């Protein structure tokens, strides 16, 4: 009886061992495969679909030898004293229009040119910009966020005013120049959620009396994907004004400064990125909407806006000689 039991035990053990042997063989092959995988920090791609959210920049640049053509448009106030049915909820007016080109000199460096109508007295804007991808987020959080630098120089072409208190009483070309510098921090928290934080410095060579030549602001933005092709986008800029100067200007002009807030729906259709947005900012250029937004959401001074961006590639296709069987 006892002998029989041991042999049964042995058989069970043998069978068990055979099983382990078999599974050893299979998992072994898989394990070898995983060991053979190249190791490295993989970059997080496509934090955003476009170089801009509603008003603010994203960390994205244009890839090498690609050209981005972008049109931004802002209508007039939807509601409030300048809106309503008479100007057909703002559609009769164009508070700002911007046409811009950006070209990727390398995968990291983008150079751009834009012509912008301008929304305040400072009009007929010519903008040159540079965007440099300094750091890219990695999937293993070795680099937890992306850093991109943005800089622009904008010249106002508008005829100089003879009124010395005006913000366009230009005396020379230099006084027409305005600069924006931004450090864009971005993180893709999940495939559907990306955010930006953008410390900004705006310098205007010439402003109205006691308006600030130098202004610091903090921008924040986010994109939430609704589907693979559609996302909700939002951004906001908080500017740090000098309260004495702010009160003086506000009292003088009978206006108030507001922080620009934009919300929009972004639709991507293979090469085109299209967005429909609402914002209280009348202007599109950073040097203008950050220091000069005097329209408020709460007063109905928000508007329809849209942007269309189209990407063209000038990369030559590689030869297809590898595929002789192609018909």
């Amino acid at each position, binding site marked *: 009886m006892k002998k029989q039991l041991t042999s049964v035990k042995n058989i069970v053990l043998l069978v068990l061992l055979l099983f382990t*042997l078999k599974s050893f063989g299979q998992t072994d092959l898989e394990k*070898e495969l995983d060991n053979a995988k190249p190791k490295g920090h993989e970059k997080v791609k496509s934090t955003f679909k476009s170089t801009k959210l509603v008003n603010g920049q994203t960390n994205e640049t244009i890839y090498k030898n690609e050209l981005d053509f972008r049109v931004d448009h802002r209508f007039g106030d939807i509601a409030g004293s300048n809106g309503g049915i008479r100007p057909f909820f703002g559609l009769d007016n164009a508070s700002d229009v911007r046409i811009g080109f950006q070209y990727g000199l390398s995968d990291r460096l983008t150079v751009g040119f834009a012509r912008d109508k301008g929304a305040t007295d400072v009009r007929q804007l010519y903008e040159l910009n540079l965007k440099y991808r300094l750091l890219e987020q990695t999937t293993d959080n070795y680099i937890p966020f992306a850093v991109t630098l943005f800089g622009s120089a904008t010249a106002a072409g508008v005829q100089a005013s003879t009124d010395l208190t005006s913000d366009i009483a230009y005396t020379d070309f230099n006084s027409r120049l305005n600069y924006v510098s931004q450090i864009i921090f971005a993180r893709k928290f999940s495939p559907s959620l990306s955010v930006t934080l953008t410390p900004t410095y705006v310098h205007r060579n010439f402003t109205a009396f006691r308006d600030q030549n130098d202004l610091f602001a903090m921008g924040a933005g986010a994109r939430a994907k609704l589907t693979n*092709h559609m996302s909700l986008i939002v951004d906001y800029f908080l500017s740090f004004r000098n309260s004495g100067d702010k009160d003086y200007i506000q009292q003088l002009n009978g206006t108030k400064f507001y922080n620009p807030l934009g919300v929009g729906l972004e639709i991507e*259709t293979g090469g085109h990125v299209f967005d429909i947005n609402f914002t209280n900012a009348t202007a599109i250029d950073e040097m203008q909407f950050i220091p000069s937004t005097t329209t408020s959401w709460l007063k109905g001074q928000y508007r329809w806006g849209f942007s269309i961006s189209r990407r063209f590639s000038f990369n030559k296709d590689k030869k297809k000689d590898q595929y002789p069987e*192609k018909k």
Partner: protein
Amino acid sequence: MKKLLFILYATLIGYSAQAQGILISRNASLSFFSSTPVEDIEAKSNQATSVLDPKTRDIIFKVSNTTFEFPKKLMQEHFNEEYIESDKFPYSEFKGKIKDEVDLSKNGTYTVTVAGTLNLHGVTKPYETKATLIVNNGSISAKATFRVKIADHDIKVPSIVFKHIAESVDVRVAADYQPKKS
């Protein structure tokens, strides 16, 4: 108890012998080609890994979807974001077996049939294709082509770019296997 120990040893010896025979290809190349009257699209990855067990004739291929390179970077972005969905499905994997009884320890050129399953975009489908193996003093170089119908793997192409992306793509595989160094 002695018997048991003997079995254990035999098992371990068998296992290690098997492990020694494994061949690895660390930089296998995988490319696919989509051709339509409107546009030809080709993408390639040289970072696929593959293992081959010449005894059992088991073969596995694995590639990180983000390693595929396209001539147009925007296309690569769309491939990862919208079609293959690399965030959800980071790898594509083929697990198969060489059906023919070939002795891969002898030098020569063999045309064999490989059958197995391909896991692409989270959908696993059976595939069978001809492959050419060239055995040269313990290392093997392999080549194969097969056709993947993208709808089979639940990859959706929006109507607006439908004319640009073929319904079936040709996949090319090439790997040079070296014996695993222990």
